[in-house]
């Protein structure tokens, strides 16, 4: 069983996202250590892309800052290799199809495996195009994380059957970003998933407050928090370690013991 899947089953899982290289690699490294210590079970590291079409303004801006600061795929791989020496938390890369494709699919997965990456999320590669990356991922034992959304409908079953690690359940339509109100429409999709698969489900998109985390985790095995963290980083820059750690432990506290 993969390290990612192993994370689930004990308590509700917290997945935290940071954009790699924002505001610089050194700060990302410190952030990941702090987020891990604050109780995140899985950390998703965004490899910045010039045109992140699935992202809202917060993560778009973070990607632009990271690229302007000189962040590259290679620098992030080196960073992960260094972190892996002392961090046990599951680490994922989240990026778009083109950075992986341009790097060379096989070369990319090989480096990911060597550096200690456990999984990969590519939001612009849906179920229909999964084979673009699935073969090389399994060759290097990298979990290729699938996404389901409130509009996945009948396709949710097929997606769940091939899912690896966990299923990324998108809470609502739209791009990433903080939302005032969240609905439980994704809960119906998760029910459909449960009919065919025991793959762990984590809900993301729009979750920012401890109350929202608690509300959403009720329907799933874990929650994903992204934009809210990235917003703190945008605000505090190199001094964001403390506020981010405090925020992560607050979310963790909210979902703990709800299993």
């Amino acid at each position, binding site marked *: 069983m993969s390290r990612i899947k192993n994370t689930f089953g004990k308590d509700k899982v917290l997945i935290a996202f940071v954009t790699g290289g924002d505001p610089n690699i050194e700060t990302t490294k410190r952030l990941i250590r702090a987020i891990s210590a604050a109780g995140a079970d899985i950390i998703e590291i965004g490899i910045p892309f010039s045109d992140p079409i699935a992202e809202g303004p917060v993560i778009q801006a973070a990607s632009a800052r990271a690229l302007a600061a000189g962040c590259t795929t290679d620098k992030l791989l080196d960073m992960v290799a260094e972190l892996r020496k002392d961090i046990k938390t599951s680490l994922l890369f989240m990026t778009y199809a083109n950075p992986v494709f341009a790097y060379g699919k096989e070369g990319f997965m090989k480096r990911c495996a060597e550096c200690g990456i456990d999984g990969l999320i590519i939001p612009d590669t849906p179920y229909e195009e999964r084979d673009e990356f699935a073969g090389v991922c399994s060759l290097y034992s990298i979990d290729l994380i699938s996404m389901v959304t409130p509009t996945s409908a009948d396709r949710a079953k097929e997606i769940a059957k091939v899912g690896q690690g966990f299923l990324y359940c998108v809470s609502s339509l739209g*791009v990433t970003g903080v939302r005032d109100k969240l609905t439980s429409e994704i809960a119906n999709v998760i029910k459909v998933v449960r009919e065919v698969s025991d793959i762990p489900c984590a809900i993301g998109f729009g979750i920012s407050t401890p109350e929202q985390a608690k509300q959403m985790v009720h329907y799933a095995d874990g929650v994903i928090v992204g934009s809210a963290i990235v917003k703190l980083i945008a605000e505090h820059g190199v001094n964001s370690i403390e506020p981010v750690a405090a925020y992560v432990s607050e979310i963790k506290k909210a979902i703990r013991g709800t299993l």
Partner: protein
Amino acid sequence: MTKGRFGIHGGQYIPETLMNAVIEVEKAYEFYSKDESFLKELDYLYKNYAGRPSLLYYAEKMTRDLGGAKIYLKREDLNHTGSHKINNVLGQVLLAKKMGKTRVIAETGAGQHGVATATAAALMDMECEVFMGKEDTERQVLNVYRMNLLGAKVHPVTSGTQTLKDAVNETMREWVTRIADTYYVLGSVMGPHPFPTIVRDFQKVIGEEIKAQLLKAEGKLPDAVLACVGGGSNAIGAFYEFIGDKSVRLIGCEAAGRGVDTAETAATIATGKVGIFHGMKSLFCQDDFGQIAPVYSLSAGLDYPGIGPEHAMLWEKGRAEYVPVTDDEAVAAFEYLSRTEGIIPAIESAHAVAHAMTLAKEMTSDKLIVINISGRGDKDVAAIARYKGVELYE
């Protein structure tokens, strides 16, 4: 291989959130593209609203002046709204209407596709919102006003390079938030399947007309068909009918901007490599890490870092040729056609005119060249004046 492939290119590389919307379009198109009454309705609009067939004009003075091949101009600039874009939007907005959608959204570069979409939306009683790079709203301020006149709302896009690619990003983001009542009218033969096929099908009328008109006028096929290429919709429209006619050279003219040896270029075939972006596998201008390049061309309509997947395939198969044309060459051709034939072409189309001026001289007088004049140049007059250092006051 998955759906919508052109060789290795094409596919459906989009977020899961959009998959159902795209599948819905695919199913609807499968049905209506074979539906007699839909096709009849579209044909009626082509003839009575857009002004089809567009003329195939023998450019006698230009032919004489260049002293080589005989040159014909396919006058897509004479269509309603002034470009080939109307062919596609009439088809897509009609499709959206049949699907029960009440709102259309679109990206636009130069504004031609935005104006055409706003026009079709006005005609068919649809709500319309257009996303346009902020830089382009400044380059093409009259087109913004035109869209407003037609009842559309224009959103200036301030992310990224503030040009066409960012307008596409923003329109996709908008679509994700509202798919139930909204149809995305993609402006070129790009994006996820089925858009490259749908747009090509609605544009292929250009080549079909060229063939029939030229056979009537000359009794034979052209030796070369030239068209400018950004995403490539007017080019595929002109080429498609001739793909099986191996004697016909198909030549796409890309925007080289300040030159393919500079960073300020949008020539995808000349400087790009295979990648995955905007829903498709195709060729893209990008750096070693796959970051999409901030491309440049004087022409807002060709200022795009990719090319439609069918063009990528035609190029790889060697069936079509693609040549880079610089800003300077395009501006010279813009002025040349204006003075020689009294036809002011769109600066986009002027890229094809520029290459034809070189090519015609290399060919003998028994050869035939067709240049697709994809749009009219009125929208470009102010920008060309600025380029030439002339200040205009209204």
